[in-house]
């Protein structure tokens, strides 16, 4: 089961409420996405920690229902 852009956004927003999220469906197949996420919670954290926060917000879906989501994170 693939996830829609809306579902991905909702999941991220539910655990990172201040997130500014921009998601692109890279090939139009509801399966390969890229997401740019900007939030204060990324400030002063390593890239690994930042991406882990995003993975955590996706509640185990990353690597399962969500096969390919390329992530870029930024503090604000």
């Amino acid at each position, binding site marked *: 089961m693939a996830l829609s852009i809306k579902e991905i956004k909702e999941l991220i927003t539910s655990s990172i409420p201040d997130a500014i999220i921009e998601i692109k469906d890279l090939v139009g197949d509801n399966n390969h996405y890229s997401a740019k996420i900007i939030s204060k919670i990324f400030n002063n954290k390593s890239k*690994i920690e930042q991406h882990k926060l995003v*993975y955590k917000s996706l509640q185990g879906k990353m*690597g399962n229902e969500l096969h390919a989501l*390329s*992530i870029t994170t930024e503090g604000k």
Partner: protein
Amino acid sequence: MEIKEKLKKIIDSNDVCLFMKGVPTAPQCGFSMTISKILKHLNINFEGINVLEDENIRQGIKEYSDWPTIPQLYVKGEFIGGCDIVKEMFEQGELKDLLEKKNLI
């Protein structure tokens, strides 16, 4: 041997190891291919561990690194990240700096 010990041994005995889908000469996933290409571009010798050959390693490394996706890059025992992070580091010259600092270039 427990999977955790096995993974630690692989990571400790290779300066640069890439847990990937496929092998360095024939990656079977675009993200694995991206990191392979970057390492080759930097002339880095690395050990490619094909997770598709061993389901225990495939699941085990996700827990070991607390990271849900493959590929995963380790340098001198340290988890560097997955494709997005490695690509970003490469583009900003940080990956080269790190490898130089670890005397791998």
